[in-house]
């Protein structure tokens, strides 16, 4: 199983790279007609994959062409100057990471807990689960700017955190909750019942079943949810304008204001004339940061998965 999940792409995947995933001229045993559906689907799937990759590479190429010349260690390690047109993005990177840390540190346990409760401890039709699920789905469609104003009102003003990384991170956490909870919950629901029955019959407590069997089996979904959440959080601008603020100084504490990378990109490209090339470079950095974080997330997930096989 663990092997399978780790290698899940191998399921039906090709052994022979030259085979394109359909069978040539397969004849129907009954009416002896060639089965076209299979060929068609294979063609469609490959076309989609190739075109999506192409579009993505277009966007990437755009970023790289315009941003690469600015990119250097210098750029990563120095502070922004002249409203970001010059200098680097060191402080902004730090703020972004701090925002993400807070956001995930708050959102992951909350959503894991809720997902577990929804999937394992409440029946699918229980009123609480039903309502929570519906309102989470609704929450997913609230524009981020409204989250920003909410965060501003609650965290910045009522709770007195002011414009700070803390309030920004908390606002982001509220924002990605629906995504995390829903995908984690469905992931847990996908785990076959036989593990639950097997564990119960051995007198293993539910907590332990959950930690040792169910969560590891749901790892692909957990990671997918996490990555979506990270993606959404790191792509956010509107909500952060009102919460973590605009200050591009190196943050000294969690209660300092700090500008997120995506906000920086937005400001440079939309508000600062002459900021385009640094905006491109920052976007490039954001993408690389995402690659690193996402790989880290799936690596940790896989590590956890493999740990189960250990002695």
């Amino acid at each position, binding site marked *: 199983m663990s092997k399978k999940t780790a290698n899940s792409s191998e399921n039906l995947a090709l052994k022979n790279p030259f085979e394109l995933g359909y069978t040539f001229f397969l004849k129907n045993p009954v009416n002896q007609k060639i089965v076209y559906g299979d060929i068609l689907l294979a063609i469609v799937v490959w076309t989609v994959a190739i075109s999506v990759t192409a579009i993505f590479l277009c966007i990437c190429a755009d970023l790289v062409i315009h941003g690469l010349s600015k990119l250097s260690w210098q750029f990563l390690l120095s502070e922004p100057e*002249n409203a970001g047109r010059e200098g680097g993005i060191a402080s902004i990177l730090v703020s972004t990471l701090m925002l993400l840390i807070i956001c995930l540190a708050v959102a992951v346990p909350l959503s894991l807990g809720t997902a577990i409760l929804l999937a394992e401890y409440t029946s699918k039709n229980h009123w609480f689960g039903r309502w929570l699920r519906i309102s989470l789905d609704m929450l997913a469609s609230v524009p981020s700017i409204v989250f920003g104003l909410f965060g501003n009102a609650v965290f910045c003003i009522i709770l007195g955190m002011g414009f700070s990384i803390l309030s920004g991170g908390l606002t982001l956490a509220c924002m990605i909750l629906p995504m995390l909870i829903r995908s984690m919950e469905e992931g847990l629901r996908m785990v076959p019942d036989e593990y639950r029955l097997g564990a119960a019959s051995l007198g293993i407590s539910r907590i332990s079943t959950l930690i040792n069997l169910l969560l590891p089996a749901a790892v692909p979904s957990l990671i997918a949810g996490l990555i979506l959440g990270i993606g959404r959080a790191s792509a956010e601008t509107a909500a952060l304008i009102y919460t973590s603020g*605009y*200050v*591009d100084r190196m943050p000294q504490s969690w209660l300092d204001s700090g500008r997120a990378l995506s906000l920086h990109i937005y400001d440079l490209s939309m508000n600062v004339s*002459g900021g385009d090339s640094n905006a491109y470079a920052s976007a490039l950095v954001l993408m690389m940061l995402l690659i690193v974080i996402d790989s880290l997330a799936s690596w940790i997930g896989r590590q956890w998965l493999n740990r189960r096989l250990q002695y």
Partner: protein
Amino acid sequence: SKPAQEETQQQKLTITGASTIAPLVSVLGKKFEEKHPGTRIDVHTGGSARGLADANQGLADIGMVSEALTEEEKKGLKVFLIGLDGVSIIVNKANPIKSMTSEQVKSIYTGKINNWKELGGPEAPITKIHKAEGRSTLKLFLNYFKLDNKFIKADTVIGDDQQGIKVVAGNPNAIGYVSIGSAEYEMSQGVPVKLLALDGVEATTANVANGKFPLMRELNLVVKNSPGKLTQQFVDFAQNKDNYEIITQEHFVPPTKH
């Protein structure tokens, strides 16, 4: 230890308001911080209205407002002009038209003229770019051309100047109005847009600075009537002639004459 506390409080200034001015004030703030070690200037955006409100309520020490204040708005506040921003019509570089009269602009935006041909240009529909409700540029534009927003028939509504420049750059038939300073900078960078002379006056920052160009807005800092020491210090610093260079760098016009 009350005075001491006050002392530390005064080490930090919070400035909120118009996003147009925010980059400028950030840069000013950084320079100020350098000159006055231990102080911190935090700049946040959120719009002119927000700047006014925060300054009034004391949520911020200074508000940034990118337009002239009405008498009513000025109540209880001190206003400091720190720069000017000319606004003019831009079109794509491929467009042969070089200047426009106020009447023409008016006709275009009210939908009386819909094709460049009518202005002596190529046969092509005009794509009119307009600003969103509440922006100071919009108010300025409407006031100057005596237009009613209700009767304007635009094709694209934008929020920020940069967006306008980008749309015009990508569309040979577009017309829009943006900050002259930004447009000049972008033109110098090879972006295919050009500023049109309005009623015969070339749209240049020089003409804004010397008062010849009529269409411009004020960039203001507002503070409470009884500002703290640091606040006053910063406002003075922002108005200081030594910093005009920074204002020019940000593609605005220093308020020399005004």
